[in-house]
């Protein structure tokens, strides 16, 4: 049943139904409403969880790390500078193979200070070993949390994950969302079964010292687990579809790609605007489609190659900038399509909350079809 609610509230509600045992987070715009709601739910005994209040994001994720090692299902949420402060703990959580799920309310990084949306924060943690999923709307955001726990806690995977949704654009938007009941969530997501855990009677240390003879092999194992997460996500997404009627079996998702000459590639909430723009261009006879990347880590290189067969031009929309080398998604798409003969152009767009309209998407397609790309789209050159 559809209910009308704020994106952040939808996240808090679904997290509640995923039954985390420990929650630790530090409030930061635009993630705040999520953790306010969860703190209230814990105070009202609606969730049987420990809410650990901390003095920083570093401590928040550290508390989650310890609680996860102790065998709890844990949850956190952050954004931007908060995620930057968690940098070290992120790598540790992945290396210790702890299945933490954390919501990222995507926001730009300072300086200059900006509270508005882009995806620089989570993209900057792309090498940390965390799975990364990006949601187009608040329904997908809620659903991906359940799928994330399923995938992460799989004993063949055992890695943490970000569920990313665009700050303000989704966090603060009220729209209809269908939330599964507690019984339905329980049927999809069984109780956490830790692979190994801290136990005073049988002490263990997590993430011990690895000498040069071992370190590379540990990194290899993490990479292999991420590669396996690919299949695990497809399976968990398909089973989600069977139970709830919303299919997430694709790491990528094509929209009107079948006979497309030009494909846009995008992640997150911008995909909705792109779909509307694609429909308008199609009405005018232009053969344009969208490939939405839902899972950025593991990076679905093969899925991208398969989805773009027959396409001649690709325009990648990057809500981030790998300073000194263009957009992160564009760079990886180019690597995936190397040798395919497809022309790939990258567009840095919508940084720091710059609004994107349908006409902007059309303009990007125009540029790509003219062979003009690898640029910042929509720069206000008059202030430069």
């Amino acid at each position, binding site marked *: 049943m559809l209910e*009308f609610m704020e994106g952040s509230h939808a996240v808090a509600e679904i997290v509640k139904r995923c039954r985390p045992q420990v929650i630790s987070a530090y409030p930061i715009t635009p993630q705040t409403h999520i953790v306010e709601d969860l703190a209230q739910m814990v105070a009202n005994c609606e969730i049987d969880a420990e809410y650990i209040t901390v003095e920083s994001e570093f401590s928040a994720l550290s508390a989650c790390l310890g609680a996860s090692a102790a065998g709890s299902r844990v949850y956190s949420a952050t954004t931007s500078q908060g995620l930057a402060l968690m940098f070290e703990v992120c790598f540790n959580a992945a290396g210790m193979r702890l299945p933490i799920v954390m919501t990222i309310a995507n926001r730009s990084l300072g300086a200059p200070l900006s509270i508005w949306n882009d995806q620089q924060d989570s993209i900057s943690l792309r090498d940390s070993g965390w799975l990364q999923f990006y949601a187009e709307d608040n329904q997908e955001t809620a659903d991906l949390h359940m799928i994330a726990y399923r995938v992460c806690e799989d004993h063949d995977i055992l890695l943490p994950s970000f569920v990313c949704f665009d700050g303000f654009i989704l966090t603060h938007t*009220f*729209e209809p969302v269908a939330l599964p009941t507690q019984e339905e969530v329980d049927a999809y997501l069984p109780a956490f079964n830790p692979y190994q855990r801290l136990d005073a009677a049988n002490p263990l240390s997590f993430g011990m010292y690895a000498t040069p003879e071992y370190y590379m092999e540990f990194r290899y194992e993490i990479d292999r687990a991420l590669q396996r997460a690919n299949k695990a996500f497809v399976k968990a997404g398909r089973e989600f579809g069977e139970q709830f009627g919303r299919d997430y079996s694709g790491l990528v998702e094509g929209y009107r790609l079948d006979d497309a000459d030009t494909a846009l590639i995008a992640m997150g909430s911008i995909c909705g*605007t792109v779909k509307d723009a694609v429909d308008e261009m199609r009405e005018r006879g232009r053969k344009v489609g969208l490939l939405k990347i839902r899972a950025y880590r593991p990076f679905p290189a093969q899925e991208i190659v398969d989805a773009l067969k027959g396409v001649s031009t690709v325009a990648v929309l990057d809500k981030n900038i790998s300073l000194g080398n263009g957009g992160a998604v564009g760079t990886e798409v180019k690597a995936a399509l190397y040798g395919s003969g497809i022309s790939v152009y990258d567009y840095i767009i919508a940084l720091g909350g710059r609004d994107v309209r349908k006409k902007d998407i059309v303009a990007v397609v125009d540029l790509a079809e003219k062979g003009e790309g690898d640029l910042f789209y929509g720069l206000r050159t008059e202030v430069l």
Partner: protein
Amino acid sequence: MTAAELIAYAAFEGGVFSQAFPAFGVERRGAPVQAFVRFSDEKIRLRSQIYEPDYIIVQDPTLIRDVDVFNGMSSGGIAIINTEKPDLDFRVPEGVKVYIIDATTIALEELGVPITNTTLMGAFAAATGEIGLEPLEHALRSRFSGSMADKNVRAAERAYTLIGGAA
């Protein structure tokens, strides 16, 4: 933002898809902000701000001096403006119908505070016909409880009747 949220919620209750979001920035009550609402028979995918509104609500008339609130409106559009001065001077685009309502006074009388969201919601419902009184009241009663709900429903209904008479 509360007005946008409530209007979108009432529209949703009335059986359409809807979306409400603020022009994000300063999140304190009273600061000048924009908020946007979309209705549609189909699921709404578009996330951009609204540049060509069918309807506008101006909560604070002093903004009219500094901002072209009618920007992007075209013929057939409807504007609802909260002001105590019915002779307020502003340039209205051709074909845009303007409803003036003293929502601040109504809110003060009914709620005891100069918060005009629910009053303007009633005016919007009457002026545009986009939402009925029943889903409007439902939206208010799920947002507010007890006597606050009653007061807000009364404020909205007063504006609805006032504008309904003029529409």
